[in-house]
């Protein structure tokens, strides 16, 4: 469904992503993990159209999307959340989601109905009338997800939405994604540090280190992969 091939991006000579390649099959849940500064968010921004890659290409449903603007990527069927949440602070929680829902819905009243059902799924229903500025960080993360879902994407990019959630909240969120993956066939690519969520959700994991994909595989394979252990824990030496 999504195919990233040999994509590179540098910022003023600093190599953020180097010849990264991976595939996201339709209907799957995938995770990108890696230490801080490995280039995960840069890859998201390349997919979402915030930056154009210096080299390589990105295909979504067999069409090139690496020269599109963010709004065109959204129109192609990819929704995204921001790691540093960007709520429309002056608008109510409901209005935040309505903005996203208007992408597919013709009327504001139709968008309101869809938005309320999404807020219900994410447990934000009671806070619909509050200004988004009054939300706590975990709720803001939920709002990011709700807004992105409201555009009815076929692929959802989640950038550290579990960070700051309590374990039970994290499990709830995992359940929400699982349900949507199963019921609506939503494909998910997530960046995550919370391994509890990654292990519970992802069928495929890619590991990024210094801008390069150093390992790909199932969760079981990844936890035993020597290069991965090395980048997280350091090289094993005989004593």
């Amino acid at each position, binding site marked *: 469904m999504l195919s990233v091939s040999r994509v590179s991006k540098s910022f003023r000579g600093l190599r953020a992503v180097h010849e990264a390649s991976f595939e996201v099959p339709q209907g799957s849940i995938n995770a990108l993990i890696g230490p801080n500064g490995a280039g995960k968010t840069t890859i998201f921004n390349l997919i979402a159209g915030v930056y154009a890659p210096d080299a390589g290409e990105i295909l979504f449903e067999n069409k090139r999307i690496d020269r599109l603007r963010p709004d065109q990527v959204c129109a192609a069927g990819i929704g995204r959340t*921001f790691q540093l949440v960007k709520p*429309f602070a002056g608008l109510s929680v409901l209005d935040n989601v309505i*903005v996203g829902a208007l992408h597919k819905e013709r009327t504001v009243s139709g968008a309101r109905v869809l938005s309320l059902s999404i807020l219900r799924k994410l447990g934000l229903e009671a806070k619909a009338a509050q200004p988004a500025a009054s939300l706590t960080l975990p709720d803001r993360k939920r709002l990011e997800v709700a807004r992105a879902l409201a555009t009815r994407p076929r692929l959802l990019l989640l950038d550290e939405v579990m960070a700051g959630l309590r374990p039970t909240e994290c499990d709830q969120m995992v359940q929400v994604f699982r349900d949507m993956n199963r019921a609506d066939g939503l494909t998910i690519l997530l960046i995550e540090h919370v391994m509890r969520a990654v292990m519970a959700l992802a069928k495929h994991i890619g590991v990024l280190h210094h801008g390069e994909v150093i390992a790909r595989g199932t969760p079981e394979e990844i936890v035993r992969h020597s290069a991965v252990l090395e980048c997280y824990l350091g090289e094993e030496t005989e004593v």
Partner: protein
Amino acid sequence: MSLLEGVPRRGLVLLAILLALLLVFPMFASGYLLAVGFLVLYFAYVGQAWNIMMGFAGQLSLGHSLYVGLGAYAAAALYVHFGLSPWIGLGASIAVCALAGAVIGFLAFRFGVAGVYFAILTIAFAEFARIGFDHFTWVRGSSGLFLPVANYIENDLWNLRGSPAMFYYLMLALAVGAFILCHAILRSRMGYYWLAIRESPDAAQALGINLFRYKMMAVILSAAMTSLAGVVFAFYYNNLFPEQIFHISRSIELILGPIIGGIGTLVGPLVGAFLLTALAEGMRELMLQLGIEVPGVKQVFYGICLLVVVMFLPDGVWPPLARKLRLDR
């Protein structure tokens, strides 16, 4: 979906009372008060038009005198040269201003000029016009364009020749129209998209909003609306000077209303226009009565008002007032 849906009943009642007061006002007002009333409505209207750009779409224009001036000159020149009714001339005014807005918008939004740099661009264009029109001989350049004036026994609405009361009602109609239009827009897709762009352009774009298109719509609509105020202005004052109408102080003057009243609110421009105009004129009257003849009292008063609002009511007068009146739902 009804236009009245979700509007609190108290708000409707208050609006109806306000409208009734404004309608009967000319029957009791002196010529001077009527002139003040006209100014209040004028600033309420242009403030509303400016608010579309800044308050809704988040784009700061400091050059709205450009649209007032172009609108005024277009209709006045067609009247003076060809005897065309301003109702026909305003078509030209709208077209010219929409085009000017589109050019500025294109230059800014296509090339990512934003924030204060966008504001500087709008000032630059108003200044171009001010200096350019000084040498534009078709409209008499710096010596000014005058509309023929006579004592009119009857109001000639078709040619906009007539009594101050006629202009007052015309301005009232425009202000009411702008209020209703903005109210409707805020409940539409465009309104939601503008507010989203104002709050976070990045997030708005990620949700599929074409930033360029919706910012262009804001600047074009705002410019076109402002041009109508220019037309009325020209036929009310009957004289136009580039040095005055395009001057930056005119642009500043028309944004003070919404700032004082509450940027981004529907009622803010109205409240601000009333406070500033009515109180500044009242102040001048008071000074006259007290025998204090100090030039610039009005400006000092403006300054004090701005200071007070910025210090104590950073969101403007209306939002806290609305909470007090329980009109914020």
